[in-house]
């Protein structure tokens, strides 16, 4: 854009320059023609003598002119030059302007007519083109300056406009990032501008309001369902406890009910963690000690199952979080890993600071995620077919809860590609020293 404007300006200025140059040359020609006409008139009256007198008079005036009249033997009769310029051809014998020629003398250009008057008298008349060249040089400098100014102005205007547009788009982008990060209540501050950008922001806001309301309604519904179901479940549990006999049936029913309750609880925990995203309520938590405690709880279970558990926990890593939720995440991941791994599989927990984040990593050498389940493994109720086939129990909510709790803490949930098994990484934002 700026380049096109500059190119147009340059073209216009180029045309202007040619025009001025032509006009100035024409003016010099006209002056030379006038001189020639004057000398022609003198020549008509008294031939060489008159011309010689006129030239001598003009030369004496000291004007910066090129005048020279010589005799047949090459002696100077009158003029401003000491002799005929070397290599200058004499063209014709009249007092007409054509043919004229440009010569260089004293370091600048002259428009000159070189003649040999009848009888062998060389005559040279010339006008300095210095004023023309000076004017053109001035013009060129002026144009160059102007061109630079145009380029700067065009570039500057373009940059400002782009910056303004980018800033407006950047606002919407930043908002989209915050929403993608889980903060559904994020909105742009300040009034909307009365332009297309303002309209875009208004539309984005309306869209977010709708999503947020739907989301809230969904959460509220799942909370209400879970709470309302607790009352009848509670009665069932109480009545079941009063049953006499049929121990086995009662035990199985109790176990089923416990499983159902756990499922409600997991759903509640997920919706709560999701609803709380971006909100407050987090306090400094020692990630290292929570991870170590939960690890300590599960390690014997892993050992009993024949796994090779190994933990490497850097001490004192603080994050902003909820102790119970973090413990739940670690417990869910460990529970999951122990469930799928078999004797001889390794199970390694690492807690360390990597790349400016506190990273909790659990790596196992078990069967890993089935192909095609990587993306949805963390969705609610996702269970691999092979689990059902192998009779592995679960409700498919454990990893969904892991994802919800990770998001609640602003932690990135990563599943690095590994040759074997499953590795899950949670990268928590580092809690600033002494800050909350």
């Amino acid at each position: 854009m700026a380049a096109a404007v500059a190119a147009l300006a340059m073209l216009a200025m180029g045309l202007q320059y040619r025009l001025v140059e032509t006009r100035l040359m024409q003016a010099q020609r006209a002056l030379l023609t006038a001189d020639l006409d004057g000398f022609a008139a003198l020549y008509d009256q008294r031939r060489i003598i008159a011309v010689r007198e006129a030239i001598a008079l003009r030369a004496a005036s000291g004007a910066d002119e090129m005048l020279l009249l010589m005799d047949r033997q090459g002696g100077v009769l009158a003029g401003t030059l000491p002799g005929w310029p070397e290599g200058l051809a004499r063209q014709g014998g009249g007092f007409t302007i054509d043919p004229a020629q440009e010569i260089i003398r004293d370091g600048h250009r002259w428009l000159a007519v070189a003649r040999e008057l009848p009888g062998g008298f060389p005559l040279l008349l010339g006008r300095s083109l210095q004023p023309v060249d000076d004017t053109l040089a001035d013009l060129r400098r002026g144009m160059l300056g102007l061109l630079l100014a145009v380029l700067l102005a065009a570039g500057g205007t373009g940059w400002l406009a782009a910056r303004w547009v980018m800033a407006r788009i950047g606002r919407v982008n930043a908002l989209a990032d915050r929403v993608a990060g889980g903060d559904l209540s994020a909105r742009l501050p300040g009034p909307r501008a009365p332009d297309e950008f303002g309209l875009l922001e208004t539309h984005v806001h309306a869209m977010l309001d709708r999503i947020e309301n739907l989301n809230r309604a969904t959460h509220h519904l799942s909370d209400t369902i879970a709470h309302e179901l607790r009352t009848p479940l509670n009665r069932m549990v109480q009545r079941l406890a009063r049953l006499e006999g049929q121990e086995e049936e009662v035990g199985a029913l109790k176990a089923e009910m416990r499983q159902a309750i756990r499922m409600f609880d997991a759903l509640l925990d997920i919706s709560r963690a999701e609803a709380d995203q971006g909100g407050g309520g987090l306090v400094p938590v020692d990630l290292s000690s929570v991870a170590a405690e939960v690890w300590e709880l599960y390690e014997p279970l892993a050992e009993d199952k024949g796994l090779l558990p190994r933990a490497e926990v850097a001490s004192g890593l603080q994050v902003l979080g909820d102790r119970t939720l973090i413990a739940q995440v670690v417990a869910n991941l460990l529970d999951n890993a122990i469930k799928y791994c078999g004797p001889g599989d390794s199970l390694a927990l690492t807690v360390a600071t990597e790349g400016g984040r506190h990273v909790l990593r659990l790596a196992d050498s078990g069967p890993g995620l089935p192909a095609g389940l990587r993306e949805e493994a963390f969705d609610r109720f996702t269970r691999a077919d092979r689990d059902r086939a192998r009779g592995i129990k679960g409700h498919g909510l454990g990893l969904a809860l892991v994802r919800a709790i990770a998001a609640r803490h602003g932690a990135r949930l990563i599943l690095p590609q590994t040759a074997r098994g499953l590795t899950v990484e949670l990268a928590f934002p580092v809690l600033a020293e002494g800050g909350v």
Partner: protein
Amino acid sequence: MTEHTTDRILPDRILIIEDDAETAAAVAAAVRDLGCTPVHRDTLDDGVAEAALGGYRVIVLDRMLPGGDGVEAMARIRAGGSGALILILSALGRAAQRVEGLEKGADDYLPKPFEPEELRARLRALLRRGTMQVLDNDLMAFGDLEIRLKARTVHVKLTHVPVSPKEFELITYFARHSGQTVTRMQLLENVWNLHFDPGTNVVDVHVGRLRRKLEEAGSHAIQTARGEGYVFAPLPGAG
């Protein structure tokens, strides 16, 4: 154990503040199972007024009641002069809500739906806490099983039983609730400070290890309680 005689003469009274009749009846049944007398109130205001009359060892308090939230009412109950221990029994049973209830002064928090055994274990622990004498030395002795709190050591028949730090906390918790059924949930909450149900037998593995160590040393102090948990019964016939 001298308290038992007075217990039999004057049964402990337990106040139940609960608006759901079915739940209240189940709680009352559990209270009677423990040999205590239940008193039921179904609104918060009535309950707070009743608590102020005094004489209650434990108050079982619901959260979502006509008249307000039980957790918020705890301060009023305390202000009324009641020294009763408070067990919150609520459908608001998620970890965060439990932690909130405990932080605001509840002595225990049991989510609904609950199993009667769990409630009984909790109530028994609270009743016990009310009478437990402050240990003025660091030795807890149960026949030939000795636990030294400062040295954090366990001896059976004068033989040292090596236990991990967690196993020591586990046996100490058992010892403090000697003779009572202790549920897995209680162990998770009190020994591991975890307020969620991991849904696996993680606790059993730890108790199993401790139990084997004790058994190898000749003590059968830890026994499985039918259905719901464990009993620490180091002395034959005790508890």
